[in-house]
C-alpha cells in the first residue's frame, strides 16, 4: 500500500517530450518540401542535402569528441542544421559548398559557443551567411530551372529568381538613363510577377530559388504539423509574415503584398528558422517583438538593401537581439512591490540622513 503512494513536487503530469522528439518532428516536417525539391530539381538536390547532413553530424561528433563533451549527435539537432543549411543553398551548388557550410555552422556557430542551447545565432543561417560572404557568385548564380516551370515563375524572363527580377526591374525603373525599351520590359516583368499565374507558381513552387524555399505549400504542410504538435509557437511566424504583409501593403513596392510573402525564403524562414527554440525569445511578448523585428528588417533589405532577399540576415540580426528582448519582456513577478514604495523609502532614508 505504501509503495503506491509517490510523493513528489509539481508538476505531476508531464508530457513525454524530449529534445530528440522535437528535433525529429522538425525533420519530418521538412520532408514534404525536400521531396518536392527533389521532384523539381532532380536527384542532385538529394546529394547536396545528404552531404550537408553528413558534414554537420560528422563535425558535431568530432567536435564533441575533441572537446571531451558528451556526444549528443542522436538528438537530431545537427541533422536539422544540415537540412536547413542545404535548403538555403542554390540547387546547382558544387558539392563542396554544403560540406564547408555545415562545418562552419556546427563548429564555429554552435560548438565553439558551447553546443546546443548555447549558440546565440541559428547555426544554419550562420553557415549560409558565411557562404554568402565567401562565395557570393555561386550563392547568387547557381540556380537551376525547375521541372515544369521557369526560374522566375514567369515566361518573359528565364534568367533569374523572382526577387532578383523584381530588384533588377526596379533598378531599371529608378535609373533615369534606362532606354524606353528596357523600361517597357521591366514594367511588363513587374506586371507578370504580380499576376495570378506567377503567384500560384510561387505558392506551389514551380519557380527557381534555393533548394528548400520554393514551395510555400509543402513548407506549410510541415509547418501545420509542427503547429498542431505545438513544437513551434504561432506567434513568431504570424507576426513575422504579418509584418511583411502590412508593410508591403502600405509602402509602394511596385508589386502586391502576396508576392512578397510567397517569394524568397520568407515561409521557410518564418516557420522553420525564426522559431528555433535556442535563438528566439522565450517570453510571449518577446516573440511578438522578435517576429515584427524580423519582418521589418526583411522588408528593409528587400526594398532598399543591396541584396534581393533579406530573410536570413533579418533572422540573424534578431537572434543577436534575443537576449535583450528577453530581459526587457520579463513578466512581472507576482507580489513584488512596485517602484513607488522604494522611492518613498529612499526619501525616508534621505530625511533620516538629514
Amino acid at each position, binding site marked *: 500500500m505504501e509503495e503506491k503512494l509517490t510523493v513528489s513536487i509539481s508538476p505531476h503530469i508531464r508530457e513525454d517530450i524530449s529534445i530528440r522528439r522535437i528535433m525529429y518532428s522538425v525533420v519530418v516536417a521538412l520532408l514534404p518540401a525536400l521531396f518536392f525539391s527533389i521532384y523539381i530539381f532532380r536527384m542532385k538536390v538529394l546529394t547536396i542535402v545528404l552531404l550537408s547532413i553528413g558534414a554537420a553530424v560528422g563535425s558535431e561528433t568530432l567536435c564533441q569528441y575533441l572537446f571531451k563533451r558528451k556526444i549528443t549527435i542522436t538528438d537530431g539537432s545537427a541533422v536539422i542544421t544540415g537540412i536547413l543549411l542545404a535548403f538555403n543553398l542554390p540547387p546547382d551548388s558544387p558539392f563542396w559548398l554544403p560540406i564547408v557550410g555545415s562545418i562552419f555552422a556546427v563548429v564555429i556557430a554552435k560548438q565553439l559557443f558551447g553546443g546546443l542551447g548555447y549558440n546565440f545565432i541559428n547555426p544554419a543561417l550562420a553557415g549560409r551567411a558565411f557562404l554568402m560572404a*565567401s562565395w*557570393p557568385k555561386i550563392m547568387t548564380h547557381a540556380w537551376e530551372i525547375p521541372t515544369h516551370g521557369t526560374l522566375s515563375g514567369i515566361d518573359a524572363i528565364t534568367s533569374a529568381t523572382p526577387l532578383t527580377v523584381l530588384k533588377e526591374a526596379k533598378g531599371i525603373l529608378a535609373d533615369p538613363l534606362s532606354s524606353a525599351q528596357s523600361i517597357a520590359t521591366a514594367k511588363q516583368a513587374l506586371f507578370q510577377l504580380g499576376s495570378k499565374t506567377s503567384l500560384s507558381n510561387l505558392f506551389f513552387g514551380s519557380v527557381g530559388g534555393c533548394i528548400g524555399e520554393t514551395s510555400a505549400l509543402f513548407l506549410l504542410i510541415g509547418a501545420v504539423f509542427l503547429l498542431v504538435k505545438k513544437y513551434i509557437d504561432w506567434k513568431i511566424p504570424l507576426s513575422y509574415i504579418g509584418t511583411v504583409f502590412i508593410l508591403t501593403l502600405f509602402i509602394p513596392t511596385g508589386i502586391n503584398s502576396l508576392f512578397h510573402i510567397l517569394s524568397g525564403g520568407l515561409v521557410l524562414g518564418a516557420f522553420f528558422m525564426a522559431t528555433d527554440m535556442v535563438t528566439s525569445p522565450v517570453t510571449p511578448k518577446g516573440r511578438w517583438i522578435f517576429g515584427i523585428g524580423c519582418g521589418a528588417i526583411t522588408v528593409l533589405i528587400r526594398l532598399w538593401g543591396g541584396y534581393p532577399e533579406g530573410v536570413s540576415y533579418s533572422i540573424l540580426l534578431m537572434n543577436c537581439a534575443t537576449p535583450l528582448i528577453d530581459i526587457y519582456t520579463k513578466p512581472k513577478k507576482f507580489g513584488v512591490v512596485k517602484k513607488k514604495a522604494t522611492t518613498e523609502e529612499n526619501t525616508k532614508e534621505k530625511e533620516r540622513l538629514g
Partner: protein
Amino acid sequence: MKHFINGIIKENPVLVLMLGLCPVLAVSGTVRDAAGMGVAVIFVLTCSNIVISLIKNWVPSQLRIPIFIIVISTFVTINDYTMQAYFPELYKVLGVFVPLIVVNCIILARAEAFASRHSVSASILDGLGIGIGFTLAVVAMGAIREALGSGTILGKTIIGESFRENSVLLMILPPGAFLVIAFLMAGMNKWVKK
C-alpha cells in the same frame, strides 16, 4: 634577454595582453601589409623606448603622458615620411594606420610601464621583444587570412589555382579578422598555460 623573450611569448602584446588590436584587425589582410605594419611598430617602439628611458629622470610625473606622446609622435612622423618616400604603395594600403601608431596602446604602455622604470639596454630589448611579438602575431594573421582568403602568400599562389579562384572571401573581410584572431588567441592561451 629575459625581457626580449618575454615580449614575444609570455607577454605577447596582441595575443596575450590584447593590446593594439585595431591595427592588427585592420591591416592583416595580406602578409605584406602585416609585415610592413610590424616593422613600423618595431622601429617606433624601440626608438621611443630608448629615448624615454634616457630622459626618465627629468620627466615630471604629472607631465609624463604628454611628453611620452611627443616622443612617440616624433618617431611616428619619421616613420610616416620614410614610408611615404620609399614604400609609397605600402603606405597607400596602410593609410591612416601609420599615423595612428602614435596612439597605439602597446607603445604607450611600454613607455609607461617599462621604459620609464628601466635602464636603456633593458628598454631596447623590451622594445625589440614586444615589437617582434607584435610583428609575429600580425604576420601570422596576415598569412592565415591571405592563404585562405586569396589563396596566396606574398602574392604567390599556394595550394592550387582552383582554390585561388574559389578562395574563402570571408577571411579577407573584417569578420575573417575576428575569427582568425580568436583562434590564434585560443591557441596561444592553451600554449602559454602549459
